Protein backbone atom coordinates (compact mmCIF):
# COMPACT_ATOMS: atom_id res chain seq x y z
CA UNK A 1 0.00 0.00 0.00
CA UNK A 2 1.24 3.47 -0.83
CA UNK A 3 1.38 5.67 2.26
CA UNK A 4 2.81 8.66 0.42
CA UNK A 5 2.24 9.69 -3.19
CA UNK A 6 3.88 12.79 -4.60
CA UNK A 7 2.94 13.86 -8.09
CA UNK A 8 4.67 16.61 -10.07
CA UNK A 9 5.60 18.62 -6.99
CA UNK A 10 7.11 22.01 -7.79
CA UNK A 11 8.01 24.60 -5.15
CA UNK A 12 9.23 28.07 -6.09
CA UNK A 13 10.73 30.58 -3.68
CA UNK A 14 11.06 34.20 -4.87
CA UNK A 15 14.68 33.63 -5.95
CA UNK A 16 14.93 29.91 -6.64
CA UNK A 17 12.94 26.93 -7.78
CA UNK A 18 13.64 24.59 -4.86
CA UNK A 19 11.79 21.57 -6.26
CA UNK A 20 11.04 20.93 -9.90
CA UNK A 21 8.47 18.34 -10.97
CA UNK A 22 9.27 15.78 -8.28
CA UNK A 23 7.23 12.57 -8.24
CA UNK A 24 7.66 9.46 -6.10
CA UNK A 25 5.80 7.10 -3.83
CA UNK A 26 6.53 5.52 -0.48
CA UNK A 27 5.10 2.14 0.47
CA UNK A 28 4.10 1.04 3.92
CA UNK A 29 7.14 -0.26 5.81
CA UNK A 30 9.67 1.37 3.46
CA UNK A 31 12.86 2.82 4.82
CA UNK A 32 13.50 5.61 2.35
CA UNK A 33 16.68 7.64 2.33
CA UNK A 34 16.46 10.93 0.47
CA UNK A 35 19.93 11.99 -0.48
CA UNK A 36 20.98 15.28 -1.92
CA UNK A 37 23.63 17.94 -1.34
CA UNK A 38 23.02 21.10 0.69
CA UNK A 39 20.40 23.25 -0.98
CA UNK A 40 18.97 20.27 -2.89
CA UNK A 41 15.50 20.95 -1.52
CA UNK A 42 15.26 18.19 1.10
CA UNK A 43 13.99 20.43 3.89
CA UNK A 44 11.66 22.16 1.46
CA UNK A 45 10.24 18.79 0.43
CA UNK A 46 9.57 17.84 4.05
CA UNK A 47 8.12 21.24 4.99
CA UNK A 48 5.72 20.97 2.06
CA UNK A 49 4.79 17.38 2.87
CA UNK A 50 4.10 18.43 6.47
CA UNK A 51 1.73 21.20 5.45
CA UNK A 52 4.04 24.05 6.46
CA UNK A 53 4.18 25.43 2.95
CA UNK A 54 0.95 25.79 1.01
CA UNK A 55 2.48 27.42 -2.05
CA UNK A 56 3.23 24.48 -4.27
CA UNK A 57 2.12 22.99 -7.55
CA UNK A 58 1.35 19.32 -7.85
CA UNK A 59 -0.32 16.82 -5.56
CA UNK A 60 0.77 15.37 -2.23
CA UNK A 61 -1.21 12.45 -0.86
CA UNK A 62 -0.86 10.67 2.46
CA UNK A 63 -2.81 7.44 2.88
CA UNK A 64 -4.56 8.22 -0.39
CA UNK A 65 -5.85 11.62 0.82
CA UNK A 66 -4.83 14.95 -0.73
CA UNK A 67 -3.21 16.99 2.08
CA UNK A 68 -4.90 20.12 0.78
CA UNK A 69 -8.23 18.56 1.72
CA UNK A 70 -7.48 17.34 5.21
CA UNK A 71 -4.78 17.74 7.83
CA UNK A 72 -5.77 14.55 9.62
CA UNK A 73 -2.74 12.72 8.27
CA UNK A 74 -0.52 14.77 10.60
CA UNK A 75 -1.80 12.64 13.48
CA UNK A 76 -0.05 9.64 11.97
CA UNK A 77 3.29 11.36 11.48
CA UNK A 78 6.24 11.84 13.76
CA UNK A 79 8.62 14.56 12.62
CA UNK A 80 12.17 15.18 13.76
CA UNK A 81 13.34 18.57 12.46
CA UNK A 82 16.82 19.19 11.07
CA UNK A 83 17.91 21.47 13.89
CA UNK A 84 15.56 21.86 16.80
CA UNK A 85 15.92 25.57 17.48
CA UNK A 86 15.22 26.80 20.98
CA UNK A 87 16.58 29.16 23.59
CA UNK A 88 19.44 27.64 25.55
CA UNK A 89 17.75 28.40 28.86
CA UNK A 90 14.22 27.44 27.85
CA UNK A 91 12.70 26.11 31.09
CA UNK A 92 11.67 22.69 29.81
CA UNK A 93 12.91 19.28 30.85
CA UNK A 94 13.16 16.20 28.64
CA UNK A 95 9.87 15.13 30.17
CA UNK A 96 8.20 18.44 29.27
CA UNK A 97 9.37 18.18 25.67
CA UNK A 98 8.40 14.57 25.15
CA UNK A 99 4.94 15.11 26.63
CA UNK A 100 4.37 18.31 24.69
CA UNK A 101 3.25 16.47 21.57
CA UNK A 102 1.30 13.82 23.47
CA UNK A 103 -2.19 14.07 22.02
CA UNK A 104 -4.04 11.75 24.35
CA UNK A 105 -2.91 11.22 27.90
CA UNK A 106 -1.85 7.70 27.04
CA UNK A 107 -0.40 5.52 29.73
CA UNK A 108 2.73 6.48 31.57
CA UNK A 109 4.19 3.07 30.79
CA UNK A 110 4.29 3.78 27.08
CA UNK A 111 6.29 6.98 27.59
CA UNK A 112 8.62 5.15 29.96
CA UNK A 113 9.16 2.47 27.36
CA UNK A 114 10.02 5.00 24.68
CA UNK A 115 12.45 6.81 26.96
CA UNK A 116 14.09 3.48 27.81
CA UNK A 117 14.25 2.38 24.19
CA UNK A 118 16.00 5.63 23.28
CA UNK A 119 18.37 5.56 26.26
CA UNK A 120 17.15 8.84 27.70
CA UNK A 121 15.14 7.66 30.71
CA UNK A 122 17.85 8.87 33.05
CA UNK A 123 17.72 12.33 31.54
CA UNK A 124 14.02 12.89 31.98
CA UNK A 125 14.35 15.66 34.57
CA UNK A 126 17.23 17.45 32.87
CA UNK A 127 16.74 20.71 31.08
CA UNK A 128 17.04 20.30 27.33
CA UNK A 129 19.62 23.09 27.12
CA UNK A 130 22.08 20.92 29.06
CA UNK A 131 22.03 17.96 26.66
CA UNK A 132 24.54 16.96 24.01
CA UNK A 133 23.58 16.90 20.35
CA UNK A 134 23.13 13.13 20.32
CA UNK A 135 20.98 13.12 23.46
CA UNK A 136 18.89 15.97 22.16
CA UNK A 137 18.29 14.14 18.92
CA UNK A 138 16.98 11.10 20.78
CA UNK A 139 14.72 13.34 22.85
CA UNK A 140 13.17 14.68 19.66
CA UNK A 141 12.76 11.19 18.28
CA UNK A 142 11.02 10.18 21.51
CA UNK A 143 8.79 13.21 21.15
CA UNK A 144 7.97 12.14 17.60
CA UNK A 145 7.08 8.62 18.75
CA UNK A 146 4.69 9.27 21.66
CA UNK A 147 1.57 9.23 19.50
CA UNK A 148 2.38 5.90 17.81
CA UNK A 149 3.02 7.37 14.36
CA UNK A 150 2.76 5.26 11.22
CA UNK A 151 5.42 7.35 9.49
CA UNK A 152 8.55 8.88 10.93
CA UNK A 153 10.15 11.76 9.02
CA UNK A 154 13.68 12.84 9.96
CA UNK A 155 15.54 15.75 8.38
CA UNK A 156 19.32 15.17 8.25
CA UNK A 157 19.38 13.47 11.63
CA UNK A 158 23.05 12.51 11.67
CA UNK A 159 24.53 15.89 10.84
CA UNK A 160 26.73 17.07 13.71
CA UNK A 161 26.38 13.90 15.81
CA UNK A 162 29.39 11.87 17.00
CA UNK A 163 30.01 8.30 15.78
CA UNK A 164 28.97 6.52 18.97
CA UNK A 165 25.64 8.30 18.98
CA UNK A 166 25.20 7.66 15.27
CA UNK A 167 25.60 3.90 15.83
CA UNK A 168 23.04 3.93 18.62
CA UNK A 169 20.75 6.03 16.49
CA UNK A 170 21.02 3.63 13.54
CA UNK A 171 20.16 0.62 15.66
CA UNK A 172 17.15 2.46 17.07
CA UNK A 173 15.90 3.35 13.59
CA UNK A 174 16.38 -0.20 12.36
CA UNK A 175 14.36 -1.53 15.27
CA UNK A 176 11.56 0.99 14.74
CA UNK A 177 11.35 0.01 11.10
CA UNK A 178 11.67 -3.76 11.39
CA UNK A 179 9.92 -4.50 14.70
CA UNK A 180 7.40 -1.70 15.00
CA UNK A 181 6.79 -1.51 11.24
CA UNK A 182 7.09 2.25 11.17
CA UNK A 183 7.65 3.67 7.70
CA UNK A 184 10.74 5.87 7.82
CA UNK A 185 11.63 8.74 5.51
CA UNK A 186 14.85 10.48 6.25
CA UNK A 187 17.13 12.84 4.44
CA UNK A 188 20.88 12.93 4.44
CA UNK A 189 23.77 14.23 2.42
CA UNK A 190 25.84 11.27 3.55
CA UNK A 191 25.77 8.39 1.05
CA UNK A 192 27.36 5.88 3.43
CA UNK A 193 24.76 6.40 6.12
CA UNK A 194 21.96 5.86 3.65
CA UNK A 195 23.70 2.81 2.23
CA UNK A 196 23.83 1.24 5.71
CA UNK A 197 20.18 1.68 6.53
CA UNK A 198 17.72 2.46 3.80
CA UNK A 199 16.07 -0.06 1.52
CA UNK A 200 14.91 2.66 -0.85
CA UNK A 201 16.75 5.68 -2.13
CA UNK A 202 15.61 8.92 -3.68
CA UNK A 203 18.28 11.19 -5.11
CA UNK A 204 17.23 14.79 -5.04
CA UNK A 205 18.86 17.87 -6.40
CA UNK A 206 16.00 20.20 -7.24
CA UNK A 207 14.76 17.46 -9.54
CA UNK A 208 14.59 13.80 -8.62
CA UNK A 209 17.20 11.96 -10.62
CA UNK A 210 16.84 8.52 -9.11
CA UNK A 211 14.21 6.71 -7.10
CA UNK A 212 14.18 3.01 -6.41
CA UNK A 213 15.67 0.14 -4.41
CA UNK A 214 18.84 1.17 -2.64
CA UNK A 215 20.78 -1.80 -4.10
CA UNK A 216 19.97 -0.62 -7.60
CA UNK A 217 21.43 2.74 -6.69
CA UNK A 218 24.56 1.62 -4.91
CA UNK A 219 25.33 -1.08 -7.49
CA UNK A 220 25.20 1.51 -10.24
CA UNK A 221 28.63 3.18 -10.21
CA UNK A 222 27.54 5.73 -12.75
CA UNK A 223 24.75 7.02 -10.47
CA UNK A 224 26.95 7.09 -7.38
CA UNK A 225 29.62 8.97 -9.28
CA UNK A 226 27.08 11.39 -10.63
CA UNK A 227 25.82 12.07 -7.11
CA UNK A 228 29.32 12.49 -5.71
CA UNK A 229 30.17 14.97 -8.43
CA UNK A 230 27.02 16.94 -7.84
CA UNK A 231 27.76 17.20 -4.15
CA UNK A 232 31.43 18.04 -4.80
CA UNK A 233 30.38 20.88 -7.06
CA UNK A 234 28.03 22.13 -4.42
CA UNK A 235 30.81 21.81 -1.88
CA UNK A 236 33.22 23.91 -3.92
CA UNK A 237 30.48 26.37 -4.62
CA UNK A 238 30.20 27.01 -0.90
CA UNK A 239 33.93 27.53 -0.25
Amino acid at each position, binding site marked *: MNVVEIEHLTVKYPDVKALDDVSFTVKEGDFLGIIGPNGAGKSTLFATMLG*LNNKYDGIIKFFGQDIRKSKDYLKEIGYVPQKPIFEKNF*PATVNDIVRMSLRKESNEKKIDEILQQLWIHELSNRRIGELSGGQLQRVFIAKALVNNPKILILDEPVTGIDQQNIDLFFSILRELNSKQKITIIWSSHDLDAVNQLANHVACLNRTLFFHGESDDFFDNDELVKQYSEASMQEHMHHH
Partner: protein
Amino acid sequence: MSFEILSFSFMHRALISGVAIAILCSVIGLFLVLRRYSLFGDAIAHSSFGGIALGLLAGVYPLWTAYGVSLVSALIITRVKEKFNISGDASVAVLLSSGIAVGLVIIGISGGFTIDIFSFLFGSILLVSVNDTILILSLTGIILIVVLVLYRQLLYSTFNEEQAKVSGIPVEKINYLIVFMAGLTVVTSIQLVGVLLISALFVIPNVTAIMYGKGFKQTAILSISFSIFSVVTGILISYVFDITPAGTIVLLSIGLFAGTMGIKSMGLLSKN
Protein backbone atom coordinates in the same frame (compact mmCIF):
# COMPACT_ATOMS: atom_id res chain seq x y z
CA MET B 1 5.26 46.91 63.44
CA SER B 2 1.70 46.28 64.49
CA PHE B 3 -0.52 43.71 62.86
CA GLU B 4 -3.46 46.02 63.12
CA ILE B 5 -3.09 46.93 59.44
CA LEU B 6 -4.15 43.40 58.58
CA SER B 7 -7.57 44.10 60.00
CA PHE B 8 -8.41 46.95 57.65
CA SER B 9 -10.80 45.86 54.96
CA PHE B 10 -9.11 48.03 52.31
CA MET B 11 -5.95 46.11 53.18
CA HIS B 12 -7.75 42.81 52.70
CA ARG B 13 -8.92 43.93 49.29
CA ALA B 14 -5.46 45.17 48.38
CA LEU B 15 -3.78 41.94 49.41
CA ILE B 16 -6.33 39.67 47.76
CA SER B 17 -6.28 41.61 44.49
CA GLY B 18 -2.51 41.90 44.70
CA VAL B 19 -2.02 38.16 45.03
CA ALA B 20 -4.40 37.46 42.15
CA ILE B 21 -2.60 39.95 39.94
CA ALA B 22 0.77 38.53 40.95
CA ILE B 23 -0.29 35.05 39.85
CA LEU B 24 -1.81 36.28 36.62
CA CYS B 25 1.15 38.42 35.57
CA SER B 26 3.64 35.63 36.33
CA VAL B 27 1.77 33.07 34.29
CA ILE B 28 1.05 35.23 31.25
CA GLY B 29 4.45 36.89 31.54
CA LEU B 30 6.23 33.52 31.35
CA PHE B 31 4.79 32.88 27.89
CA LEU B 32 5.63 36.41 26.75
CA VAL B 33 9.20 36.26 28.05
CA LEU B 34 9.80 32.90 26.35
CA ARG B 35 8.39 34.24 23.11
CA ARG B 36 10.91 37.10 23.27
CA TYR B 37 8.00 39.40 23.72
CA SER B 38 8.97 40.79 27.10
CA LEU B 39 8.08 44.37 26.35
CA PHE B 40 4.69 43.54 24.91
CA GLY B 41 3.12 44.04 28.35
CA ASP B 42 4.68 47.46 28.46
CA ALA B 43 3.38 48.31 25.03
CA ILE B 44 -0.18 47.33 25.88
CA ALA B 45 0.07 49.23 29.14
CA HIS B 46 1.11 52.36 27.31
CA SER B 47 -1.65 51.99 24.78
CA SER B 48 -4.10 51.57 27.65
CA PHE B 49 -2.90 54.97 28.87
CA GLY B 50 -4.52 56.38 25.75
CA GLY B 51 -7.64 54.42 26.66
CA ILE B 52 -7.68 55.77 30.19
CA ALA B 53 -7.36 59.35 28.97
CA LEU B 54 -10.20 58.68 26.54
CA GLY B 55 -12.40 57.36 29.35
CA LEU B 56 -11.67 60.33 31.58
CA LEU B 57 -12.47 62.69 28.73
CA ALA B 58 -15.70 60.90 27.85
CA GLY B 59 -16.74 60.52 31.47
CA VAL B 60 -16.73 56.71 31.22
CA TYR B 61 -15.07 54.50 33.86
CA PRO B 62 -11.48 54.70 32.52
CA LEU B 63 -10.62 51.03 32.95
CA TRP B 64 -13.42 50.04 30.55
CA THR B 65 -12.04 52.24 27.80
CA ALA B 66 -8.58 51.00 28.69
CA TYR B 67 -9.71 47.40 28.18
CA GLY B 68 -11.22 48.34 24.83
CA VAL B 69 -8.28 50.30 23.51
CA SER B 70 -5.59 47.90 24.66
CA LEU B 71 -7.33 44.77 23.39
CA VAL B 72 -7.95 46.36 20.01
CA SER B 73 -4.40 47.61 19.72
CA ALA B 74 -2.95 44.28 20.88
CA LEU B 75 -4.89 42.43 18.19
CA ILE B 76 -4.08 44.99 15.51
CA ILE B 77 -0.39 44.91 16.26
CA THR B 78 -0.34 41.12 16.14
CA ARG B 79 -2.09 41.15 12.79
CA VAL B 80 0.23 43.81 11.39
CA LYS B 81 3.25 41.97 12.72
CA GLU B 82 2.14 38.76 11.02
CA LYS B 83 1.08 40.35 7.77
CA PHE B 84 4.01 42.67 7.18
CA ASN B 85 6.69 40.69 8.94
CA ILE B 86 7.66 43.51 11.30
CA SER B 87 9.93 42.40 14.12
CA GLY B 88 8.57 42.03 17.64
CA ASP B 89 10.57 44.87 19.16
CA ALA B 90 9.69 47.33 16.41
CA SER B 91 5.97 46.57 16.68
CA VAL B 92 6.19 47.05 20.44
CA ALA B 93 7.89 50.41 19.96
CA VAL B 94 5.17 51.61 17.61
CA LEU B 95 2.37 50.54 19.94
CA LEU B 96 4.09 51.99 22.99
CA SER B 97 4.64 55.45 21.59
CA SER B 98 1.27 55.75 19.88
CA GLY B 99 -0.56 54.94 23.13
CA ILE B 100 1.26 57.65 25.04
CA ALA B 101 0.90 60.12 22.18
CA VAL B 102 -2.86 59.62 22.00
CA GLY B 103 -3.12 59.93 25.78
CA LEU B 104 -1.11 63.14 25.87
CA VAL B 105 -3.12 64.74 23.08
CA ILE B 106 -6.40 63.86 24.80
CA ILE B 107 -5.12 65.22 28.11
CA GLY B 108 -4.09 68.39 26.28
CA ILE B 109 -7.53 68.78 24.68
CA SER B 110 -9.31 68.31 27.98
CA GLY B 111 -7.06 70.75 29.81
CA GLY B 112 -5.66 68.03 32.05
CA PHE B 113 -6.98 65.84 34.84
CA THR B 114 -3.84 65.32 36.80
CA ILE B 115 -5.01 63.48 39.93
CA ASP B 116 -6.77 60.61 38.19
CA ILE B 117 -4.06 60.10 35.61
CA PHE B 118 -1.48 59.96 38.37
CA SER B 119 -3.18 57.01 40.07
CA PHE B 120 -3.29 55.11 36.78
CA LEU B 121 0.33 55.83 36.03
CA PHE B 122 1.59 54.56 39.36
CA GLY B 123 -1.18 52.29 40.59
CA SER B 124 -3.56 52.65 43.51
CA ILE B 125 -3.89 49.22 45.03
CA LEU B 126 -5.00 50.56 48.42
CA LEU B 127 -7.96 52.18 46.71
CA VAL B 128 -9.44 49.10 45.01
CA SER B 129 -13.15 48.77 45.62
CA VAL B 130 -15.13 45.63 46.33
CA ASN B 131 -16.26 45.61 42.71
CA ASP B 132 -12.70 45.97 41.45
CA THR B 133 -11.67 43.05 43.63
CA ILE B 134 -14.46 40.88 42.27
CA LEU B 135 -13.53 41.80 38.70
CA ILE B 136 -9.85 41.05 39.33
CA LEU B 137 -10.62 37.70 40.94
CA SER B 138 -13.01 36.61 38.20
CA LEU B 139 -10.64 37.53 35.41
CA THR B 140 -7.78 35.77 37.16
CA GLY B 141 -9.94 32.67 37.57
CA ILE B 142 -11.04 32.64 33.94
CA ILE B 143 -7.58 33.22 32.51
CA LEU B 144 -6.00 30.59 34.76
CA ILE B 145 -8.59 28.04 33.71
CA VAL B 146 -7.92 28.79 30.04
CA VAL B 147 -4.18 28.42 30.61
CA LEU B 148 -4.60 25.12 32.44
CA VAL B 149 -6.92 23.68 29.81
CA LEU B 150 -4.72 24.75 26.90
CA TYR B 151 -1.43 24.23 28.74
CA ARG B 152 0.07 21.84 26.21
CA GLN B 153 -0.89 23.95 23.21
CA LEU B 154 0.39 27.16 24.83
CA LEU B 155 3.70 25.59 25.82
CA TYR B 156 4.21 23.82 22.51
CA SER B 157 3.55 26.83 20.31
CA THR B 158 5.78 28.91 22.58
CA PHE B 159 8.55 26.34 22.31
CA ASN B 160 8.52 26.00 18.54
CA GLU B 161 5.77 27.24 16.24
CA GLU B 162 6.71 25.10 13.29
CA GLN B 163 6.78 21.83 15.20
CA ALA B 164 3.56 22.74 16.96
CA LYS B 165 1.92 23.23 13.55
CA VAL B 166 3.13 19.84 12.39
CA SER B 167 1.57 18.35 15.52
CA GLY B 168 -1.72 19.88 14.43
CA ILE B 169 -1.87 22.72 16.97
CA PRO B 170 -3.69 25.85 15.72
CA VAL B 171 -0.68 28.05 16.37
CA GLU B 172 -2.12 31.27 14.95
CA LYS B 173 -5.21 31.06 17.14
CA ILE B 174 -3.05 30.32 20.16
CA ASN B 175 -0.92 33.39 19.38
CA TYR B 176 -3.99 35.60 19.32
CA LEU B 177 -5.23 34.03 22.52
CA ILE B 178 -1.98 34.82 24.33
CA VAL B 179 -2.03 38.41 23.13
CA PHE B 180 -5.67 38.73 24.13
CA MET B 181 -5.03 37.33 27.61
CA ALA B 182 -2.01 39.60 27.96
CA GLY B 183 -4.17 42.61 27.12
CA LEU B 184 -6.75 41.68 29.75
CA THR B 185 -4.03 41.02 32.31
CA VAL B 186 -2.27 44.32 31.76
CA VAL B 187 -5.34 46.48 32.19
CA THR B 188 -6.46 44.46 35.20
CA SER B 189 -3.04 44.94 36.76
CA ILE B 190 -2.86 48.67 36.22
CA GLN B 191 -4.48 49.19 39.60
CA LEU B 192 -1.62 47.41 41.32
CA VAL B 193 1.50 48.93 39.85
CA GLY B 194 0.25 51.41 37.27
CA VAL B 195 0.99 51.75 33.59
CA LEU B 196 4.66 52.50 34.02
CA LEU B 197 5.77 49.46 35.99
CA ILE B 198 3.55 46.69 34.61
CA SER B 199 6.19 44.96 32.58
CA ALA B 200 8.24 44.52 35.75
CA LEU B 201 5.58 42.10 37.02
CA PHE B 202 5.52 40.28 33.70
CA VAL B 203 9.25 39.93 33.32
CA ILE B 204 11.27 40.07 36.54
CA PRO B 205 9.80 37.13 38.52
CA ASN B 206 10.01 34.99 35.41
CA VAL B 207 13.61 35.71 34.48
CA THR B 208 14.44 35.09 38.14
CA ALA B 209 12.62 31.75 38.16
CA ILE B 210 14.16 30.62 34.86
CA MET B 211 17.64 30.91 36.42
CA TYR B 212 16.87 28.05 38.80
CA GLY B 213 17.16 25.52 35.97
CA LYS B 214 13.87 23.74 36.61
CA GLY B 215 11.21 22.38 34.29
CA PHE B 216 8.27 24.38 33.01
CA LYS B 217 5.77 23.85 35.79
CA GLN B 218 8.28 24.32 38.59
CA THR B 219 9.55 27.47 36.91
CA ALA B 220 6.01 28.82 36.78
CA ILE B 221 5.46 27.97 40.45
CA LEU B 222 8.73 29.63 41.47
CA SER B 223 7.85 32.71 39.50
CA ILE B 224 4.40 32.90 41.08
CA SER B 225 5.94 32.53 44.55
CA PHE B 226 8.46 35.31 43.95
CA SER B 227 5.74 37.50 42.60
CA ILE B 228 3.35 36.90 45.49
CA PHE B 229 6.15 37.53 47.98
CA SER B 230 7.07 40.85 46.37
CA VAL B 231 3.49 42.02 46.10
CA VAL B 232 2.39 41.11 49.64
CA THR B 233 5.57 42.34 51.31
CA GLY B 234 5.58 45.42 49.10
CA ILE B 235 2.03 46.38 49.99
CA LEU B 236 2.65 45.95 53.73
CA ILE B 237 6.00 47.75 53.79
CA SER B 238 4.77 50.60 51.69
CA TYR B 239 1.79 51.10 53.98
CA VAL B 240 3.84 51.03 57.17
CA PHE B 241 6.46 53.43 55.84
CA ASP B 242 4.03 55.44 53.77
CA ILE B 243 5.86 54.99 50.46
CA THR B 244 4.54 54.10 47.01
CA PRO B 245 3.47 50.42 46.78
CA ALA B 246 4.27 50.09 43.07
CA GLY B 247 7.88 51.13 43.49
CA THR B 248 8.32 48.98 46.58
CA ILE B 249 6.87 45.88 44.90
CA VAL B 250 9.09 46.24 41.87
CA LEU B 251 12.20 46.93 43.96
CA LEU B 252 11.53 43.81 46.02
CA SER B 253 11.26 41.65 42.92
CA ILE B 254 14.46 43.20 41.60
CA GLY B 255 16.00 42.29 44.96
CA LEU B 256 14.99 38.64 44.45
CA PHE B 257 16.42 38.77 40.93
CA ALA B 258 19.73 40.23 42.17
CA GLY B 259 19.84 37.71 45.02
CA THR B 260 19.32 34.83 42.60
CA MET B 261 22.06 36.14 40.33
CA GLY B 262 24.31 36.37 43.37
CA ILE B 263 23.58 32.78 44.43
CA LYS B 264 24.09 31.63 40.88
CA SER B 265 27.40 33.38 40.36
CA MET B 266 28.68 31.83 43.57
CA GLY B 267 27.94 28.47 41.97
CA LEU B 268 25.38 27.49 44.58
CA LEU B 269 22.71 26.78 42.00
CA SER B 270 23.86 23.45 40.71
CA LYS B 271 22.74 22.36 37.30
CA ASN B 272 20.07 20.08 38.64
